[in-house]
């Protein structure tokens, strides 16, 4: 056997020699070795809405929030729609306290209509949760968890109800589409948008599936959801329609921390146990502070060999006033 290449010394990032994304650790993908207009690898979804880039940026209370979904190279290569989705909504409680609901969904690869499934589930869950919390006076752990459970159940029921012709809905009646065909992960966070005197806030997080939540604290990403650190990655994951309930927990976020919800398209490359990986190091450096929209999208479209899944990130910087200067 003969080998053609040797791996040169790694660099964290490298400006692209030709038009293309930022390369992480000098490990570019073959996919981006040619411009998209030259290769035959970057294909549109024939029925429209490939969803290469979706982005929301804005503020609520003292939170600065940036969210984006980037279509993965595998779906570009196959001419399929992006299967990730995010939904961010804001609300105000009866007592006037603002909050953010951030939801992420990653449609399962085995689901035929996973793109619709993730979009539908995140929207339903986000809307219902926001509406439920808005009807409370002073949300506490119990009331918010109750709202979460209700939103989850309602999502499971209503996700399978649509009319043919509804936006992005499968061109089939719901009776002909099983829940497995619209299966998706679901990860969410309810973030109070008001500062506290002690410069911390309690955030309710929850998930079903493998889309993780991180907290950036002292330049290091800490995973707030379960992760498996074995030698072998097993790719099995559950989704909304196959799970009984969401796994939730309350976490404390300091004003200097950054909250980061993501799908495994980025999440798998953030850290390996206690060790930060190259992408994690890069994003930790980049997202220490809020960034302009175009830079946010640029950061999201980093190039790394084998990182070819759809990517979604919702990044939340509390106490945005600290970033004025």
């Amino acid at each position, binding site marked *: 056997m003969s080998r053609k290449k040797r791996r040169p010394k790694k*660099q964290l990032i*490298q400006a692209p020699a030709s038009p293309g994304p930022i390369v992480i650790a000098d490990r570019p993908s*073959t996919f981006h070795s040619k411009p998209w207009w030259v290769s035959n690898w970057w294909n549109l979804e024939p029925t429209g809405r490939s969803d290469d880039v979706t982005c929301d940026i804005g503020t609520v209370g003292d939170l600065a929030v940036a969210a984006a979904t980037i279509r993965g190279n595998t779906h570009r290569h196959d001419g399929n729609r992006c299967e990730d989705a995010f939904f961010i909504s804001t609300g105000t409680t009866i007592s006037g306290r603002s909050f953010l609901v951030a939801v992420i969904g990653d449609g399962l690869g085995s689901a035929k209509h996973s793109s619709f499934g993730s979009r539908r589930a995140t929207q339903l869950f986000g809307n219902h949760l926001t509406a439920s919390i808005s009807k409370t006076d002073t949300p506490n752990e119990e009331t918010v968890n109750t709202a979460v459970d209700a939103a989850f159940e309602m999502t499971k029921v209503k996700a399978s109800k649509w009319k043919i012709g509804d936006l992005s809905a499968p061109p089939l009646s719901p009776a002909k589409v099983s829940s497995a065909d619209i299966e998706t992960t679901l990860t969410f966070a309810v973030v109070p948008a008001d500062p506290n005197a002690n410069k911390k806030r309690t955030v309710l997080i929850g998930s079903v599936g493998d889309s993780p939540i991180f907290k950036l604290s002292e330049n290091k990403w800490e995973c707030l959801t379960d992760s498996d650190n074995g*030698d072998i990655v097993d*790719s099995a994951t559950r989704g909304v329609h196959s799970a009984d309930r969401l796994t939730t927990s309350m976490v404390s976020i300091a004003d200097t921390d950054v909250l980061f919800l993501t799908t495994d398209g980025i999440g798998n490359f953030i850290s390996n146990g206690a060790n930060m990986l*190259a992408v994690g190091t890069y994003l930790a450096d980049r997202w220490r502070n809020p960034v302009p929209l175009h830079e946010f999208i640029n950061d999201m479209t980093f190039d790394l060999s084998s990182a070819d899944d759809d990517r979604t990130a919702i990044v939340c910087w509390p106490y945005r006033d600290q970033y004025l200067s």
Partner: protein
Amino acid sequence: MSATDVEQVQTGEQVLPFYIVCDESASMAYNGGIDAINNGLPDLHASIASDPLVNDKSRICLISFSDDAEVLCPLAPASDIDALPGVMEKGATSFSAAFRLLKTQIAQDIAMLRADGFQVFRPAVFFISDGEPTDLNWQDSHRELTDKSLNPHAPNIIAFGVDRADADTIRRVGTIAAFLAEQDVNPGNALKEIMRALTNSIVQSSSSSNPTLIIPPAPDGTISLPLDVMDET
């Protein structure tokens, strides 16, 4: 944006290792098996190397076995391979030798990949044989390889049998799928289809954004053996 040097940065790139394990017993020459495999290797390579996603994510290793087992091509991306040693007919059919080598080789490869910062998905083994094992107690080596409580790196095995291969034996070798060539099918032709099927399996498994071993449908000229009726010994 300026480049920043980072010593020992780990990327966590994802890798799906595939091990193609071929019987090199003498009978493989008479039934056209050797030629079918050697002729199928360039096509397998081309299918993988030409797909930008599959090539980045998959690693291929070619192992042969007869009296003993040998790594013909260490685990590597297809695009790094210009030429590789083909299979040739040799002697007996020692399954134990193949399974023992797989166990040590997989452990070594995963350790090396992990040390280089890769995330490794569970390896997949495509096991091809045309006869009965000539060694006693091959099941012990098989169990040591595939039992996850004994071997955390236990691979998924898809077994293919042609010619004189025994259905029960092939069924016991496969852990997630097993296929046996039909009686009236020329073994060489069956092996051509098998090579095609495993190529497709590698391509489809690696091109998924969430790598999962895609079990191929039964190659032409073969039947799928049900694993759930396997007798435990």
